[in-house]
């Protein structure tokens, strides 16, 4: 099933997230990730969501979102030139030699060490899906204790004329 990256501009109003959550639950749509925040215009929020589904499901997701009164604009960014980023915080077991290995990985992936403990290190890393997946694959054998991710945010690239 293709995962679609959908960007939704909404009125920055009380209850809008509940409306969207209610729509998804009522229609049986899934959400893989969701990131919400105010835009350059404080009356508008942008929600970036990753939604799995075949073409028919995604068509309904987009149309149903557009039908919500407080939704201003819905764009499916999948397959379009976009900049996408996600931020994660990951706490890894770090004893003995592993500490050096983790610090090396942090350097390669341009991650920052944001918390240091005798038994663990906590890394902050920002990037696209491949980068984050790559780092996590290398960290997992060392023992990931905690992982938290913001969900993807995305903007379509501005066309150069």
């Amino acid at each position, binding site marked *: 099933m293709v995962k679609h990256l959908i960007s939704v501009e909404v009125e920055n109003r*009380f*209850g809008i997230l*509940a409306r969207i959550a*209610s729509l998804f639950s009522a229609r049986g749509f899934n959400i893989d990730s969701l990131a919400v925040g105010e835009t350059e215009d404080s009356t508008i929020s942008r929600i970036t969501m990753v939604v799995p589904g075949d073409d*028919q499901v995604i068509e*309904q997701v987009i*149309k149903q979102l557009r*039908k919500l*009164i407080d939704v*201003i604009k819905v764009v499916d960014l999948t397959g379009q030139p976009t900049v996408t980023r996600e931020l994660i915080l990951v706490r890894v077991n770090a004893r003995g030699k592993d500490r050096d290995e983790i610090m090396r990985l942090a350097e390669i992936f341009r991650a920052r060490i944001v918390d240091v403990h005798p038994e663990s290190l906590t890394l902050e890393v920002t990037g696209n899906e491949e980068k984050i997946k790559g780092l996590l694959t290398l960290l997992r054998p060392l023992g990931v204790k905690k992982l938290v991710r913001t969900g993807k945010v995305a903007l379509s690239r501005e066309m150069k004329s």
Partner: protein
Amino acid sequence: MKKRTGAEILIEALTKEGVDNVFGYPGGAVIPIYDALYDAPRISHITVRHEQAACHAADGYARATGRVGVCIATSGPGATNLVTGLATAYMDSVPVVAFTGQVPTSMIGNDAFQEANITGITYSITKHNYLVKDIDELPRILKEAFYIARTARPGPVLVDLPKDIQNVATDAPYPEEVKIRSYNPHYEGNPKQINLAAQEIDGSERPVIYAGGGIISSGASRELYEFAHHNNIPVTTTLMALGAFPENDPLSLKMLGMHGTRYANYAIMEADLIVAVGARFDDRITGKISAFAPEAKIMHIDIDPTAISKNVKVDIPIVGDAKDILPRLKALTKGKQREDWHRKIAAWKEKYPLKYDKDKGLKPQFVVQKICELTGGKAIICTEVGQNQMWAAQFYCYTHPRSFISSGGLGTMGYGFPAAIGAQIGRPDDIVFDIAGDGSFQMNIQELSTVSRYKIPVKVAILNNGYLGMVRQWQQFFYKGRYSQVDISSIPDFVKVAEAYGVKGIRVEKKEEVEAALKKALSIKGPVVIDFQIDREENVYPMVPADAALHEMIDGLA
């Protein structure tokens, strides 16, 4: 601008939106609104006996008149009692605005007395809803609520009004116009799509128009009639669209679907083009979806983009208002004769008419036919849900839009009687019947008090078989006749119940008494309840079993 309280602004909104009737039930959190209503003699308020009935009455009023129906309930249980009514209106796209009281803003979220999160509860059963937290926003919100309810695909809108908001004053004016940047209904069909559609229509040999409730909300019955006749295309309607196309017209195939006519369903199965207008391919219409109209291209005209390709893949979608699109399609099409197709349909009509055994006792179909005959087919027929609804749909001849009022999508038992009250208030000069079952009628039977008090002359025809008849029918067909918990016979005596409320009650036990009883009921100026004690095990035929294709119908009579 003079300062007005929230409650006064609400009255101002009702006046400016042309609302002259509201249905409601007072309670602690709406006392300020009722106090303001006390000074508004031009707005007539009907006090019902249960909030659910207020919402159904507002809905019936809206369906009968085409105007927005309005209801009022208090916070907490008053608001939650509206839920079924809102869900009913939402499923059938009916413009209703519901006002609920709410605990004061300072107490919201504290589990205060009679507090319920009604906006949260109704997200998925309203087109939109509002919780008003700032008095200065109230005028705009009220204006938007009416606008959203009646435009595009209509639907219910709920406005939750905390008690302090009803009491505080503002000088914010009631806006003249609505501007919602995120809501811009799209009415005009795309010309390219319309051209394409016209070519498909001209190219088709066996087209069928499948018309839905959208024709009625759009007010496009005349446009449908002219388009169908110009192109000689037979028309079948959904339950929601009964009356959108005259059933006495030679092009009419009457209703399709689970309890539709054989000829409508056969026509769908053999068609090479389905022209769906303002319909949504509900499972009660399509039968087994993969077998629906197997030979046809599907054209779909609808104001709601989400309706298109939701259940059935659509080949030619046109988003827009039927009232705009049908005349444009008519102008672009050649007007083919299609004689072979009509010969075939005429043969089906001849061979498979709707029928029942007229000679065996008191049959519900006979009662419905008599109501049609004695009212000249000009009454407004409301129904409950179940067998009564299907017999009312099949055996009355609908010729006018807004003459059949029924809960189609949600299938709400208890809808018909309060809806009939609303319809009668909206159209006081028309005859209004509620064709009921003994089960459904008891779900809002307390409204006998309302019709009695306000002398609302609704005629209730109970097709009383002492069963939850449609469930019994399914148990008979699909559960080996194991009638589990569906026998509700003998209680109550409906004539005595009616009389206890001061309403005339008539009992009919024999076929020979039907005409006299109906004539008597029609001669009485007030409300009447007629208890027709029908053949208990009469079934609704034909029937497409769940998950069967439309042509796989079962029938009681060979």
